[in-house]
């Protein structure tokens, strides 16, 4: 079993209290379930709330399309507005771009979540690339290959409601971003 050190920056949403340990466990499970990098392979599994989770290994543009489609479809099923669905797809695009740039391949895990009042979508992007030495910096404005236009990881942090990076140099990166449905 791999061990990860979690350096967390979390925009804490007080209403979202799903267990961090459980999430960590899920991340690991996912790593073991699909470390393949073949195009088009999607794994769907039924989560604890009887809802379907999707895991898309990403190594090509086709995979990106698949991940975006799955994300948008899940948003639609959960009753998100089209605009929110677009933001989820955007987050998937930016997270995948990040994987392509730094690790070449990885995977996107999309899962529906809920707490007592709301439902939402969590997108987990993980790779086994070189990792990020300073995750705090990576989520800040200015740290970007696009000259500080607010795209990339900082952009994802802003269009989603919760955002979290854990990474360790040499051991890959996992970015978790959640979007809640507007009440």
């Amino acid at each position: 079993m791999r061990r990860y050190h979690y350096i967390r920056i979390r925009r804490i949403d007080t209403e979202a209290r799903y267990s961090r340990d459980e999430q960590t466990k899920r991340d690991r499970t996912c790593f073991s379930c699909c470390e393949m990098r073949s195009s088009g392979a999607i794994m769907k599994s039924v989560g604890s709330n009887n809802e379907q989770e999707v895991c898309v290994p990403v190594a090509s543009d086709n995979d990106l399309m698949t991940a975006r489609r799955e994300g948008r479809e899940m948003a639609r099923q959960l009753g998100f507005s089209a605009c929110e669905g677009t933001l989820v797809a955007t987050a998937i695009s930016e997270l995948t771009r990040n994987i392509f740039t730094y690790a070449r391949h990885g995977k996107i895990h999309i899962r529906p979540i809920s707490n007592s009042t709301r439902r939402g979508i969590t997108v987990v992007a993980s790779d086994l690339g070189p990792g990020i030495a300073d995750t705090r910096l990576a989520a800040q404005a200015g740290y970007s290959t696009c000259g500080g236009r607010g795209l990339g990881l900082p952009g994802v942090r802003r269009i989603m409601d919760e955002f979290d990076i854990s990474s360790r140099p040499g051991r890959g990166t996992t970015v978790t971003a959640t979007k809640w449905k507007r009440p």
Partner: protein
Amino acid sequence: MNAPTLEWAVGPDGFHGECATVSAVAMKDAPDMLAERYWAILQEYLAYSSEASLSRGYELARQALVDDCGVLEFAEIHHGALRRLSAEACSDGRTLGAASDFFAECLSPFEMSHRGAQEGARALRHLNEVLEGELRRIAQTLHDEAGQLLASVHIAVADAASDLPPKERGRFEKVAGMLTEVETGLRNLSHEWHPTILDDLGLLPALEFLAQKVAKRAGVDVSVRGDSGARLPAAVETALYRIVQEALNNAIRHAAARSVRIELQCTPYTVKCSVCDDGRGFDANRPPHTQGLGLIGIRERVSALGGSLRLVTEPLNGTTIQTEIPLGG
């Protein structure tokens, strides 16, 4: 319909290859080629409504943004595509709906960028508040503690002098005189840094007070005109005070102005402030380095409050700085 055919490579290399082509296109023949690409991908989306087209549209818009395409410019490209659609008589309700879905997808990078700018402005506003607080603290300490200390030195000097014969006393009086000068200097500095008059009486009286001081100190003619209406939000008052202070500084120190006019104008929705000097001005396209920092400071204060800044200047013809800050936002 004769749309340019697009070839899309697969994989990370293809991904970046595509970005590179779009970038080169946007740089060279923008915005015509950008419009052509947009049109081609839009048609692809209208024909197949596939996620791939949405993703391409997104990447196209993202690259356009990186290449400094504005959101209005991009909207114009979309309108151009709509005009083409209606010219080709394929603009039924469903097509138009799909086209606007596609357009929304392309606006997503701009949305991200917009949120980034908003966050930046918030951070800047916060930073200004922190700096202002710090300045206040220093000014207060200077005023209270150094002032207290100087007062005790005064008493000690007077005390020491009183025991001396009148001949020697003269020298101590000189020292006392110098101490008074230091005291006045410190008090002035402290008032300029932390203008209590701004808190107590508002912007216009504070500007008048500042103008008087600066006029006396630098020997220039400074006039203040404006309506002293209701009090403005504290952040706006402080920002405008600092902007005028900086502009006055520039006018005297760099532009060698002989007279400066300050005007303040309040409406229910905005406050306008202009500082106009008759100094030597400069080439607006190449602001001198020494002045650069002051101007950047002014610009940042204005943009943190969502306002606008206009700089009118040319060599030998004076400088006018106009700011407009929205109220109640």
